[in-house]
């Protein structure tokens, strides 16, 4: 198809992966770090950068593995899950070691949630979505960028809201994580409004 068609298609993938099918508020993947870290803004931003880096680099490498090794050798049903996760887990290991040195307080703020990115539903989700829709190389990178920016958008939104909630009188019953769930429910409802924006 013509080049302009291809660009329109890329834009469609980007918009639908970041907003319309937002990975957190519509597809409900990656909620563990979403609820756990948004009680302070700096760890949410730190986590989002870590997720962007690992998502994009993993989807590049997993696309290469998928199309150069797995599909030609018909070993996809066997090796796909394990090889993708090996790549993602190792990238997370690299980020973990690097962050421990580069910004120790960010590393401490992320705590348990940093290793959790490894199986974090988002990254494996992205690589699987790319593989199932058999996107080509550029499309899978755009999808990865779109989804991780969608993740960042949702994280920063909730982190901002929770910071304001801290000094407003939340009923005792809902203090802490409970109000974060309620707010996310309303955010998810709002994001439902984007459905069907792209025909």
């Amino acid at each position, binding site marked *: 198809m013509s080049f302009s068609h291809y660009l329109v298609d890329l834009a469609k993938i980007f918009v639908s992966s970041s907003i319309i*099918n937002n990975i957190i508020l519509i597809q409900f993947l990656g909620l563990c770090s979403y609820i756990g870290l948004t009680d302070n803004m700096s760890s949410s931003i730190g986590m989002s950068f870590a997720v962007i880096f690992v998502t994009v680099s993993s989807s590049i490498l997993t696309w290469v593995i998928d199309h150069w090794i797995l599909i030609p050798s018909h070993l996809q*049903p066997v*090796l796909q899950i*394990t090889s993708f996760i*090996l790549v993602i887990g*190792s990238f997370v290991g690299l980020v973990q070691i690097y962050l421990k040195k580069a910004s120790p307080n960010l590393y401490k703020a992320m705590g348990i949630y940093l290793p959790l990115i490894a199986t974090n539903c988002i990254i494996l989700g992205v690589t*699987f*979505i790319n593989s*199932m*829709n058999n996107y080509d190389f550029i499309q899978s990178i755009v999808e990865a960028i779109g989804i991780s920016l969608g993740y960042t958008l949702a994280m920063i939104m909730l982190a901002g809201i929770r910071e304001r909630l801290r000094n407003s009188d939340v009923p005792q019953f809902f203090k802490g994580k409970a109000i974060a769930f309620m707010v996310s429910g309303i955010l998810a409802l709002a994001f439902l409004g984007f459905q069907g924006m792209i025909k």
Partner: protein
Amino acid sequence: MKSLVKFTITLGALGVIVGLLLVMVYRITLPVINSQDLKALNEGLAGVFPGDNTFEKLNETLKSSDQTITIGDCYEVKNGGNIVGLVVTVSSPGSQAPIKMLVGVKKDGTISGVKILSMSETPGLGANADNPTYFVNRDKKITFLDQFTGKNALKDPLVPKQDIIALTGATITSNAVSKGVKIAGEVGYNYLKGVAP
């Protein structure tokens, strides 16, 4: 330096062991899985195009008019030597991944039956598409897929909220299935027109 060697050996050895185990299990289970898939396919074909017919795989792949829908293998339906219809494998983009279906098409374009081969829609919502106990019409016990049987791919619009009742809470899945069936019906009709007028 020491940790580098330690990591490489441990991760490398783990990769090798896991690789070996996975292939071993794959080799044992592959023949069984293939025979199961073949059985499921034959059941699917018979289910989608009732009657005692023989199914013969086409070696040419047919083109679909709509760019988002891809047509897979097609099977000519023969009854006593003459062609009575075509079963088309079609996959259309669902909410997260493509939905793969078998669609039976008669010579005049009417749909003889639809079966979903694979999809990954959310359980309880989109996944109700092939749920035998989920009825769009409770008293006549018609499931979501039964609606398509008997409709004509050329004359009927086959669009949710018009002549197809959509799945509650899963508009994307309903649209994807309906569009897939419509395109498969057209492709089947055009092929059959050329082969058996």
